[in-house]
């Protein structure tokens, strides 16, 4: 079974959105879950974020940033091309119920991951305050889509080109401290680079607001077999693929998460450079 790309869109300088045929995923997907894809026979398996699904059409929409060989190769595919595998939905769905007021913080491609959660939480009757962060205005994705389901929305950019000049965590702190009904904020969900999630967890910790982070660890099979995504929550080993990907951000050992993400960096760079060279020579 291959998965044809029916729609492709460039969301920012380095971020793409592809809609692929994957009826078996679309049918069962819930917000918070993810897929693992392989482009062709020699590809690696990579976990990707699902930003939306269309069960009747039998398609899912994936958002990814070009960070290495596989994502660059994926970005080079066009409508009509196909991926050889797509397994999912993987992981556990987000907890969706009426919490009251929920702050959703998304950074980089994490915004795509938080989008279906924002939608589902709104549909469950929550009041959503969204905080989106990007390096620069041109890298910011899905702002309009998320706005539609949010009561309030804030943007921050590292270079100040849009919204707050700084980090999402500055905005998060401000939103919490300025909120007259602080006790109403029942949950913070943060998805983005692990450094950002770690910082966000430190912002909410003194306020004792339940904070959920979705971990983007390295995975191979994604079915609980390899243990590559192991992560330490409250000192206990958990697998992000089958126990997560969402965990209590106040209990996650983010230092270990961040360190383990760089385990294959040297090889990843090697593959990326090799691929770029091969493209140039074509």
């Amino acid at each position: 079974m291959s998965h044809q790309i029916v729609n492709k869109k460039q969301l920012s300088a380095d971020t793409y959105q592809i809609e692929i045929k994957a009826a078996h995923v679309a049918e069962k997907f819930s917000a918070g879950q993810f897929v693992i894809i392989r482009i062709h026979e020699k590809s690696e398996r990579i976990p990707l974020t699902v930003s939306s699904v269309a069960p009747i059409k039998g398609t899912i929409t994936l958002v990814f940033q070009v960070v290495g060989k596989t994502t660059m190769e994926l970005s080079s595919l066009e409508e009509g091309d196909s991926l050889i595998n797509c397994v999912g939905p993987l992981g556990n769905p987000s907890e969706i119920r009426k919490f009251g007021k929920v702050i959703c913080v998304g950074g980089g491609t994490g915004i795509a991951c938080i989008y279906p959660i924002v939608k589902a939480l709104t549909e469950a009757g929550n009041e959503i305050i969204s905080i989106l962060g990007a390096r620069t205005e041109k890298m910011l994705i899905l702002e309009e889509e998320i706005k539609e389901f949010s009561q309030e929305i804030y943007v921050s950019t590292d270079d100040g080109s849009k919204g707050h000049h700084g980090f999402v965590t500055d905005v998060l702190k401000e939103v919490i401290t300025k909120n007259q009904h602080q006790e109403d904020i029942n949950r913070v969900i943060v998805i983005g680079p692990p450094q950002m999630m770690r910082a966000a967890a430190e912002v909410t910790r003194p306020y004792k607001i339940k904070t959920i982070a979705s971990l983007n660890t390295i995975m191979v099979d994604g079915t609980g077999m390899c243990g590559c995504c192991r992560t330490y929550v409250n000192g206990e080993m958990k697998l992000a693929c089958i126990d997560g990907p969402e965990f209590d951000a106040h209990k996650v050992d983010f230092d270990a998460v961040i360190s383990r993400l760089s385990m294959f960096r040297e090889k990843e760079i090697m593959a990326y450079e090799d691929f770029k060279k091969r493209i140039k020579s074509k």
Partner: protein
Amino acid sequence: MIKLGGKRVPMREQKPKERIKNFKSVPLGYNEKEVVKEAQRCIQCKGLPCETECPINMKILEMIREIANANFKKAFFIIKEDNPIPAITGRVCPQENQCEGVCPLSKRDQGINIGKLEAFVADWARHAGIKEEFHIKERPEKVAVVGSGPAGISCAVDLRKFGFKVTLFEALHKAGGVLQYGIPAFRLPTEVVDYEIKYLNDIGVDIKLNFFVGQNIKFDELRKEYDALFLATGAGAPMFMNIPGESLKGVYSANEFLIRVNLMKAYKFLEFDTPIVCKSPIGIIGAGNVAMDAARCALRLGIEKVYILYRRTKKQSPARIEEIQHAVEEGIILKELVSPKKFIGDDDGWLEEVELYTMELGKPDGSGRPRPKKIEGNEFKIKIRTIVEALGSMPNRLFLSRTPELEVNDWGQINVDHNLMTNIEGVYAGGDAIRGNATVILALGDGRKAAKSIRNYIINKARKK
């Protein structure tokens, strides 16, 4: 013309110095002349110890007799009656503890090389394009087999032969389970596994890859859609030591290490995209077959210094004798009576050293082997930059968490009755999912037995209607 007894015909192998540079099969296999000569050693004893000791009671004697007469086709059909994957079991069965171990010839020299005879016949048939011939009388009932390892394969084959419509679900992108992701190609060539999978396709088994039962389809939905289920979900969840430093870079589970190398072909990195980082010296914890596989993969990835760190001694190792011999010939260093206390990293979070306990052997434990005990105060450190933990594995957790109605024991193994039926009617289980880490041949036997139980169950149900 039959020459009884005599010395075992030696198996030609790739020389250690050569083979550690490739992932090709280590044994080169008998040729026709050799295989006949080896079969002719058989004294055709009446007690049939080899068949009795075989977990699936293969008709070994008849097979050997046909091989001795160079009648390979007939030998192939005889094996196939009992064993759907002889090319695989011939290579991975622990024959020394089974058929070959009880061969009377093993008292004087070595027993008949039954595994290699079996593999020869299966390979011969594969190369000659000879397949088992049977007629399938189609039936309307549908059976789902979950998991495509040896238990799932053998069950699917028999269920098809009984005429059922069979769907085989596999979460990974290739079918074969542990045969595909676990056992390295130098022990079980990929083409051998691929051929058996293709055979499933040929006889009409519908294989659904990338399909994760529990996620893509709920257990209830599966039960509604199929007349019976066979759960061959294996034992794929890795166990870890749970000691300090396990999150360091450079620490792998054997599953991750072997999946990267075997399934994802990380040894051909740049041609294939999946990376593996393996720094010398490497330490493999454990001394079973999986540990030997990981150690020998590490050598083939170019690592010079490969340690096996084992808390008991070589004598108690659960690995096949052939695997230990091969590993030692290839230059693997076996460190006995040691057990890791903690992993120590550098400033960048990479493994640098391992602190080991010195162990001693105590009284026998539940497995009958002497229990290893720590000698306190005798800890020492050695430089090790990659660790592979080959401690065994547990049943797949996710599937079980999605099926709380299924009864399991304290180790998460599915409980079954003597027909291999679980506590849920029409749902059967076998292989590592009920046994923990067992062998390919036991899984295969379960698959066959479950297929028979499922046939009886479905036919009885049809009669009652």
